């Protein structure tokens, strides 16, 4: 029964992955990617690694792929133009892929794991503890520096992305909640005794009266 499900999920996973790179519509490609992620999660579940399976769903499907979809839906890609240089650039792409693959293989075969982790490594369902606990025990003790390092890399990537895309918007109106909260009634309202049958002009009242200028970062500058 489980074997049947394993082949079912694997087949859908392979099919979906193939569709990711071959489908013409980019939105369909991302949706196939999501299908592939979900099937990979199902395979993890079959292997007994329920923590990894659900983390995969939360992180990749629930957050990363949503942002992918978000961006891809907004793009207006011209595919004829995109395919023009395909023949010319294909060898370069293949070369880069090959180098990356070689590096991965080198890392995989040259990697020495901490000896204590052998008890829980290689088995998704260690006999003594649940796999969530096993993962925590290895990850936050003997691999803590690598773990922190990967966090730092992500932080650097995030700051880099912000620095690259941030632009100063001049003259933008900003809401300052603190200033709004600090405003008192007597700063905003003025109560006047108005004689009956007298117009606003006759009592020397012109609207709009002096209004406080909205919060600005700086004075508005002429747009180019």
């Amino acid at each position, binding site marked *: 029964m489980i074997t049947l499900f394993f082949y079912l999920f694997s087949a859908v996973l392979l099919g979906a992955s193939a569709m990711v790179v071959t489908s013409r519509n980019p939105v369909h490609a991302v949706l196939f990617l999501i299908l592939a992620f979900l099937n990979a999660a199902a395979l993890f579940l079959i292997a007994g690694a329920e923590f990894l399976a659900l983390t995969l*769903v939360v992180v990749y499907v*629930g957050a990363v792929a949503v942002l992918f979809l*978000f961006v891809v839906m907004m793009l207006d890609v011209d595919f004829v133009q995109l395919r023009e240089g395909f023949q010319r650039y294909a060898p370069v792409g293949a070369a880069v892929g090959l180098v990356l693959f070689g590096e991965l293989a080198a890392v995989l075969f040259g990697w020495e794991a901490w000896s204590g982790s052998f008890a829980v490594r290689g088995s998704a369902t260690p006999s003594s503890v649940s796999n969530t606990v096993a993962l925590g025990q290895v990850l936050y003790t003997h691999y803590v520096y690598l773990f922190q390092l990967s966090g730092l890399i992500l932080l650097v990537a995030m700051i880099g992305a912000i620095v690259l895309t941030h632009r100063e918007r001049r003259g933008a109106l900003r809401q300052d909640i603190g200033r709004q909260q600090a405003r008192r009634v007597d700063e905003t309202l003025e109560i006047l005794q108005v004689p009956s049958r007298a117009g606003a002009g006759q009592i020397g009242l012109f609207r709009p009266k002096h209004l406080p200028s909205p919060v600005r970062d700086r004075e508005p500058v002429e747009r180019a």
Partner: protein
Amino acid sequence: MRDFFLHTEVGSGLLTLFETLGILVPVLILMAYSTYFERKALGAFQLRLGPNRVGWFGLAQPFADAVKVFTKETIIPAGANRFLFLLAPSITFILACMAWAVIPVQNGWAVANINVGILYLFAISSLGVYGIIIAGWASNSKYAFLGAMRSAAQMVSYEVSIGFVLVSVLLCVGSLNLNDIVLAQSRHWFAFTPLFPMFIVFLISMLAETNRAPFDLPEGESEIVAGFFVEYSAMAFALFYLGEYTNMIMMSAFASILFLGGWQAPFGLTFIPGVFWLLAKISLIMFFFFWVRATFPRYRYDQLMRLGWKVFLPLSLLWLVLTAGFLEFFHMLPRSS
């Protein structure tokens, strides 16, 4: 008989089916009456009667609505992507139902009492955004698309603080199993411990996660007509509606399990079965949903993002660190079994 259900494949399959029906049928009835509850509550808030025509006190109103929706015509817009257009409401509804598999309604009474129940619920609620974003794209309509964009950003933002809330509860319990989380609250409900601010953060993020007022920007009827489901009619629309209410009930159940002691009885009133206590707590939080809806105007988009990223994220992160420090300092961290 017992052997048939527990030890044969057909029997255990049938048993799972019965268990599933056993939770889904009450949930769907609860969902139907939560629409009635909402309309009656809103009526009371606005000094009107609410539905009172169909049946005794209007109690047949949900069924009248269901019949109305069933008999209408499903319209698929000309430029829409037919498959995805119909897939989107189904995703919303199926996900809303799937989540109920792990909710314990009594000690050990859950369809699937799995090790990582809390992660499962978190994963399911984070998938909920797909129904909306696919609906927005497949409709081929600018209002629907705007609604979908808003929803994607909103739900991803508020998930982050929900995640930190979940982690701080986990730290106190030491297990990802929902049943264990409820059992850990047999003496003190987490809402009445120093986790109280996290309870508030969870309640508010929950509103954003289910796209309810005052965070119903994806709908935003005063700006973008009806947002992501502008183009939907009849059953397809009804599935969104069903999904939204089922999700609300699910989030209420989640909040009761995390903070209000799930099925645990307060004041030692254990002669009333736990299922009823869970129902009472769910109803209380559902009332909170409607109360908020009747009270607050809709947030502006930048205010929503500010609240999520600049207020809730630092607050929940700080409280998580404080919780961890407190537990470590007083040697109260749960040891893994």
